[in-house]
């Protein structure tokens, strides 16, 4: 069955609410300003109104409420809305949620999921376009899920709400909501923490996550058609846990790595992948690693300026060609 990313999310949320009384929603936006995607949430809103809490614009308090409810035995999903607003909740997400299990010596578990609709969404400008994933990667105790396709939107959300026993940041993307994929809801999912090889290839590894997954796939298509190059596309799916083995195995095969990630270049997700290669995969590298990122510039409003900074399929292609000396 073909579903959109938004449908995958809404369906997972609905199924989890139906299956487990402890699942509850703090906020229920999830779909940003996208009216088509918003429609997918209607069954949830209709069937589970009693388990959805009204939310003032108090992100810190809401995140904390989710943590506290989790600590008290519930399994809350907290809508933190646009990625940039997670900073409002940082004291609770970074310094409470992530630490409680450890500080208690394992006495207390914190199965809360924070939903963050992050990324460069088109004219969101500097204050509404953040990708907080690399920052959150500095926080041991958090799980960070980053679906790159509709089926993983479904699988990963379901896993977070039903199975996870730890605080989880679910990073969604405004420009992925309409992306479609084939879903077999009954098929066992690839374990969380395992990357997905979205396309096999032998000449270069394109390592991607979230919005850069469809772009890397497009780049792989161009590389094959226009340059006769066979690119492997690795979709990380989560950055905590981070599947270093699959990345290393792919690069061991291809000898070349292009890391496509929407974070700012410095201290971003791509830096960690590149560092892993420099530490554990040096011998397999036939060419310097290539990072394709958002430059270290706040996100401008104007479409023309934003486009200049955006990680595109073309830039991924150019990066791949560079690693191949072309």
């Amino acid at each position: 069955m073909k579903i959109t990313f938004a449908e995958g999310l809404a369906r997972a949320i609905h199924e989890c609410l139906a299956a487990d009384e402890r699942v509850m929603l703090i906020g229920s936006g999830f779909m940003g300003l996208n009216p088509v995607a918003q429609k997918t949430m209607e069954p949830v809103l209709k069937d589970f109104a009693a388990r959805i809490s009204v939310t003032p614009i108090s992100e810190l308090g809401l995140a904390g409420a989710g943590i506290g409810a989790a600590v008290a035995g519930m399994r809350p999903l907290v809508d933190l809305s646009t990625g940039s607003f997670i900073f409002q909740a940082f004291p609770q997400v970074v310094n409470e949620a992530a630490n409680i299990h450890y500080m208690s010596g394992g006495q207390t578990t914190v199965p809360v999921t924070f939903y963050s609709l992050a990324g460069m969404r088109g004219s969101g400008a500097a204050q509404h376009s953040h990708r907080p994933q690399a920052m959150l990667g500095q926080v041991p105790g958090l799980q960070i899920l980053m679906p790159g396709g509709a089926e993983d939107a479904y699988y990963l959300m379901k896993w977070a709400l039903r199975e996870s026993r730890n605080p989880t940041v679910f990073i969604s993307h405004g420009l992925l909501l309409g992306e479609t994929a084939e879903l077999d809801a009954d098929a066992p999912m690839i374990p969380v923490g395992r990357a997905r090889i979205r396309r096999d290839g032998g000449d270069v590894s394109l390592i991607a996550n979230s919005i850069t997954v469809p772009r890397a796939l497009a780049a792989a298509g161009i590389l094959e058609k226009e340059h006769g190059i066979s690119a492997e596309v690795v979709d990380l799916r989560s950055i905590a846990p981070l599947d270093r083995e699959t990345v290393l195995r792919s690069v061991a095969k291809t000898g070349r790595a292009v890391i496509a990630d929407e974070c700012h270049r410095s201290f971003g997700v791509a830096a960690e992948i590149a560092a892993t290669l420099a530490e554990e995969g040096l011998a397999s590298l036939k060419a310097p690693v290539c990072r394709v990122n958002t430059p270290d510039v706040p996100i401008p409003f104007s479409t023309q300026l934003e486009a200049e900074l955006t990680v595109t399929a073309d830039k991924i292609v150019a990066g791949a060609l560079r690693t191949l000396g072309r």
Partner: protein
Amino acid sequence: MKNLGVADRVLAMLRIRRFEEQCIRLSAEKKLVGHYHVYIGQEATAVAACTLLDKDDFIFSTWRNHGHLLARGADPRRMMAEILGKSGGYAGGRSGTLHLSVAALGAPATSALVGGNLPLANGAALACKQRGSGMVVNFFGDAGMEEGAFYEAMILASVWKVPILFLCENNSIPPALRKRGQFTSSTLPAKQLVDVPKSLNIVTEIVDGADADALVECFTRLTAEIRSGAGPRFVEVRCTRWPGSFPLFPELPDGEWQVAWAFGQKPDRQDLAVWLEHSDPLLLHIRKAVASGELDRSQVEAIDAQVRAEMAAAVRFALDSPYPDPQEAYRHVLAQGGQTR
């Protein structure tokens, strides 16, 4: 401190109204991209507040900033160019509608985060106090009061006794409650918004945002107190939501605002008619001025003609302004000069 005459006040309000109408049109035509917010129905507030300010005063605004900046004297052409993401805009297309600022007019930083500008405004007021000159007007919406940042800013302003007017524009009040009555909200449990700053020892007031004269009287008094060193003041301005603001993106329910509506003619849409009759600060102010003989219809029409010409020029300027060179994306990340490399 200047005080505008009636005609100038109508001009200033109509300028905002017509500017926003152009935004709505340009958005419908897909020339303005992305989400944006208009100030229709709140014009009297910005005009009354900003015309009381001096050159060394500051304003801090939000995503709903167009009216504040126009009232402070910003050039509609450069504003519109910015909103369209053009190189002729105040920030060369970097800010767009959400963070429009004009430093030369004392509007140095506009935050599009709920509660975001309150701590900033407070800091600017601390600077004014340290220097012994200037004051701050801090515009924000009622949802701003749901953020912890609001609360911390109230604490600091009250402890530091800084010269600031916290101006909360509560834009979803039924007409009957504008002058008095409890504020009811599903998300802020205060019976009255002003109860919160009051609990932190800040002097507060409530005023009807559809009544330009009441606003002028209130702000004149409060800014005088603030300038005399009395510390912060908080005012809740109550406005009634304009019907065009209900959809996800604003729409003109019955086309552009008509001068004739102030002179007896009715629009087709009933919700709009009710809003105009009871809650439109522009219409009510014109009607009052006409009733008192301070203004006549031909004068209003002349003002309108002037404003329409201004706005046509602004739109033309904005459309003609080139898109920024992509390399401009890399400029202004850091101010140059202080760095040694």
